[in-house]
């Protein structure tokens, strides 16, 4: 089950910090998402692309999860070597495109392009 089928999301940044917000469509989706997207599992996926630790904030009243990576964007938007500025607006797809196995709650990113 793709995360983007049960939740909407948006990426933001402040200085070195990348923040990723997911809001679930309903309580069942929030529960599934909360269990599958553990800090450990999310950090494992995100560290393929951006460095540093992940903090998670739970907002059950809003059916939302926030993942904050304080060191992901070293030097902020000016320092990026991606084309142009503000590449991180696309970073939410790193979470939206994750598949959750409904049996094991394991995460995988299908069809990942490993070459650089």
């Amino acid at each position: 089950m793709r995360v983007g089928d049960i939740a909407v999301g948006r990426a933001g940044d402040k200085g070195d910090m990348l923040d990723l917000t997911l809001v679930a469509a309903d309580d069942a989706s929030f529960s599934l998402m909360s269990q599958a997207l553990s800090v450990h599992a999310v950090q494992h996926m995100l560290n393929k692309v951006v460095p540093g630790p992940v903090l998670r904030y739970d907002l059950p009243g809003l059916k939302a999860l926030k993942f904050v990576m304080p060191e992901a964007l070293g030097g902020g938007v000016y320092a990026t070597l991606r084309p142009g500025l503000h590449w991180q607006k696309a970073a939410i797809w790193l979470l939206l495109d994750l598949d959750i196995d409904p049996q094991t709650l394991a995460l995988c990113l299908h069809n990942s392009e490993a070459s650089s």
Partner: protein
Amino acid sequence: MNPHKPVYRIGSGAGFAGDRVDPAVALAASGKVDAVALECLAERTLVPAIKARADNSEAGADPRLRRRLTPLLPAAASTGCKIISNLGAANPRAAGMAIAQLAKGLGVSGLKVAAVEGDDVIAMADKVKWVKPVTGKLIGAHAYLGCVPMAEALEAGADVVVTGRVADSALFAAPVRQFLNSDPNALAGALTVGHLLECGGQLTGGNYDTLGGPHPGNPLSAADFAALGYPLALVYADGSADITVLDGAPAIVDALTCTLQLLYEVHDPSRYATPDLVLDFSGIRFEQIGHNIIRMSGARTSGPPPTLKVAGFIELPGFIVDCEIGFAGTGAWERAKRAADALRMRLSDWADEDIAIDLVGVNAILRAGSLSAPPPAELRVHVSARCQDAEMAQQIEDEVYALTLSGPAGGCSVRSEKRNRIEVLDGFIDPALVKTQLLWSQS
């Protein structure tokens, strides 16, 4: 006072310096809002303003001031709508005088314009507690001001308030403040409204992928995006609010769009520091009370923060160079990959952390997180590098250009840009040290 009647109506006229001009005009002309606030100042836009003012003491306001306000001033004057904006950038005083002069030229007379000064704290940089040591040339230091100076200007009769660096949410809370209950949670609500509205169309369906991605019947059409309604809020005395758009404007205002914006660029949602109050969003409720109308309530505060945040701008030596070379036609992907590999060999003496070589259209943005897809018909090899000086930047550009003669066939459409290396450094300052003042102009 009827608790079920809004005490103030505020619209969001812009969410960044380059944002559309027409949404603010539509809101101001509608008669449906008492004020429009326009957020026009990012860290990215403050840097060129600081440099412009360093060259010319009359410069440093938002260069889009004239284009943005020429249609807005008459529209706002026709309905008595106030205008609040941080488009003063690095020179609110000059912006205030320019606005009064522009209004006079447009035949809008008697307009009272207040400029808020005091955010520039470069002269007190040694009193700022920076989060890490300042290495490089500090070219600017601006404290985030709260809503009080703007509110005082409005209470003294200002029609237009122009500022430099203030908290974005404060632009929206400033005109509301005098109508709120004295309970701090009411101001917390108004600041939360400001936080929701400060990104303009991002609250109402912009930069928003619906559940499951775009699919028929749900997403906004191209025509809807082209005419997206910007948000307005009807604020109640207790700081709760109804969030909506002008009647009939294309938009999505629901609990999902509002929650995404509530949490956007927030670190700890139960401790979101603004210059006026530390906000707790954990108890916020969004209730759909009509088509594209959301009722927001439940904002709380733990009180004012002990310090004001300061944004410091440090100029680092050298440049970041960002170049691309295109490939098209049969075999474009193979030729592009070979061109990228040739560049990696030519530039192998560069440290890995100072250079990136990738394929635009394949993996330049999400890198190892990119999805695999059929090779695009056209794509670009992209190179960015950190360069100590202009000569090194030139070397990178030349290596990319040289592929047109000595690389795989058909290297074309080369483009290149250089940007200065700027670091934004956060710091904190004692609020008692930051003195603000109002400067008045009249048309």
